């Protein structure tokens, strides 16, 4: 992980019922006022329903200096007025080896009325040219919903955390229908990485595996089981006990020990933002169903 950088301050502008042109103008003003280094590697969108706002902001706080980007936080609002409220800020981070700072632009948009279902019309003018667009959808994606479909036409990669859903990633088959449209990342999948590494070490004994016992979040357990089904090419019975994080994985009664890795929500999202192409192993794990 990169050395933490100190935040040197943020300049910001807030407006109610604004236009995209006003936001663009404010961005230009903020940039023009800053002599700092500005480079970008991606546009990071986040769809953040009200219950996820606090978590999204906390994640973002630890992310900006690692992924110089334009971050656009989309907050759908339960207000009927057709309006766009915005907060634009330039967050700069000092690097001891550089005279200037590295700056990232953060745009918070509150979408009211009809805009809740047409977010792309606001997002498209604000995307950085020629750079990939990542969408972190907080909570269960509204598959087939207008806002979700609208944004899927804009982004290169969808980042979800299937631990945030009741039915997990493969349950309804809706997530797998996205695979042909955009690359998909799942933070829950990343959380299983250390366990997958240890389980894989059991090869070739693993070839005869019948039963997988996981104590942890439903989504992670389902992904581990799906992974084994897809790799072994046959069914694996899953025995699941609910827990906040995986603390037990056993294959045919044999407990697997994995080294503990503490990753913050920012670390986890940061990991996903480093990936660009489709992950066929993940896709197979989601798609593999129990017999």
């Amino acid at each position: 992980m990169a050395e933490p950088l100190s935040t040197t301050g943020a300049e910001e502008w807030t407006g109610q019922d604004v236009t995209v042109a006003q936001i663009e103008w404010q961005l230009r003003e903020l940039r023009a006022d800053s002599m700092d280094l500005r480079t970008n590697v991606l546009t990071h969108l986040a769809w953040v329903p009200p219950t996820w706002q606090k978590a999204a902001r906390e994640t973002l706080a630890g992310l900006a200096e690692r992924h110089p980007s334009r971050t656009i936080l989309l907050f759908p609002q339960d207000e009927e007025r057709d309006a766009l409220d915005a907060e634009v800020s330039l967050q700069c981070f000092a690097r001891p080896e550089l005279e200037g700072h590295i700056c990232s632009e953060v745009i918070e948009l509150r979408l009211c009325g009809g805009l809740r279902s047409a977010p792309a019309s606001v997002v498209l003018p604000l995307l950085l040219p020629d750079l990939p667009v990542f969408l972190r959808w907080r909570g269960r994606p509204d598959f087939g919903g207008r806002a979700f479909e609208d944004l899927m036409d804009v982004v290169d990669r969808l980042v979800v955390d299937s631990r945030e859903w009741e039915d997990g990633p493969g349950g309804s088959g809706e997530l797998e229908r996205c695979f042909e449209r955009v690359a998909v990342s799942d933070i829950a999948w990343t959380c299983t990485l250390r366990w997958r590494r240890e389980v894989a070490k059991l090869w070739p004994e693993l070839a005869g595996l019948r039963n997988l016992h996981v104590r942890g979040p439903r989504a992670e357990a389902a992904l581990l089981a799906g992974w084994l089904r897809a790799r072994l090419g046959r069914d694996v019975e899953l025995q699941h006990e609910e827990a906040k994080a995986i603390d037990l994985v056993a294959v045919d009664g044999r407990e697997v020990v994995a080294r503990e890795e503490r990753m913050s929500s920012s670390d986890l999202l940061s990991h996903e933002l480093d990936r660009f192409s489709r992950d066929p192993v993940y896709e197979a794990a989601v798609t593999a169903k129990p017999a």
Partner: protein
Amino acid sequence: MLVIFGASGDLTRRKLFPALYALAVRHLLPEPFAVLGSARSPMSTDEFRKDMEEAVKQYARDEFKPEVWEELASATFYVPTEFENDQGENRIAQKLEELDQERGTQGNRLYYLAVPPSAIATLVREIGERRSTSGWARLIVEKPFGRDLKSARALNREIREYFREREVFRIDHYLGKETVQNMLALRFANGIFEPLWSRQYVDHVQITVAETLGIEGRAGFYEQAGASRDIFQNHLLQLVALTAMEPPIDFDADAVRNEKVKVLRATELEASVRGQYGPGYVDGKWVPGYRDEEGVDPESTTETYVAAKLRIENWRWADTPFYVRTGKRLARRETTIAVQFERAPHPLFVHADGLRPNVLAIHVQPDEGVSLGIGVKVPGQGMTVRTVNMDFLYGGAFRTGLPEAYERLILDALRGDPTLFTRADEIEEQWRLVDEMHRRWAREGTPDFPNYDAGTWGPEAADELLIRDGRRWRSH
């Protein structure tokens, strides 16, 4: 003396007087100098000055300075006239002579024809027949210059009856934009780009002139013009010419324009797509479809979008397509020339999912500047490669505001430098391509309009234009 015909129009208020004011602020107007406005609207000189003062306060890029305005206002005059009327023209000629005496402008005239296309030929004749025998005379003609090759040729013939080519300044305000001129600097002042600027290293070029605006009350004009005549014929093809032209031997007007004409002559239309917008969200606001705009025929078949694949049949560009597009009510306001280079010949890096082709993008507007997408190693133990953008922003590098295109162009015309104006043969080459496009459209029949939603990047057929070549439009 600057003589503006059509002085009561929007162009004079929004662009010409704000530009004159900016030149006055910087002491760039010649001495002596005067402006004579003329239009059908009955108005006194005082009323005209008041109107222009408001326009300057509203649209000028500089802070309003009363002392600067007073000086410009004192040199500003107005004569109402009917252009087709000999008496009206005589009245203007008489006023010009008076002003020559009062202001010492010595018979030097820059005529700015900010009038509808239908009025241009008559005005040229009226002006030409009354050319002053002393001083110089120049003519600025606004676009659209004709509506097809035949009418453009006829207009050129009419103009040549009274004016020499070096006295004619056919304006395409895009050429006055700093970033468009920077294309010449980028290409010909840097040793690193020109060797790469050819079919050997360039995969293709994309030029986008995208607007989020609709027709803004100009239904009468737009219904007749459409995107092909409004933007494609002039702005887009000029950008193609500047991107593709050979290096001129110097920066003389004819040297530059010779090269532009050569490349336009080598340009052929391979395929084109047209579109018309339906309703949708643009910049977060719901907007009506084109056919629902005020003054537009509800069954209109006017195109609000054009995309084309152009081939440039010369040594430098053979087999390297130029994809161009323009439209109204698109997803974002953007004018960009994007030169996409060939990928590295051998995929050396396994972890290069994030590596995109190198793109040199010249951002004409907004965010004026240049960006170059390059692959770099992601810090860490592995060898992961991804694309980052190196950005040069005019606003960040130079702490002065960019001049408006009209400032540069008016000043060049006052100085007699036509480099940034379009020559007769350029205009005719541009219309040749548009005529070819219209001929094909007539054969194909009108698509099922509307065929794209406002706030999107245009019709699906435009995407297919690139997809069948294994490419895609830059969408963000």
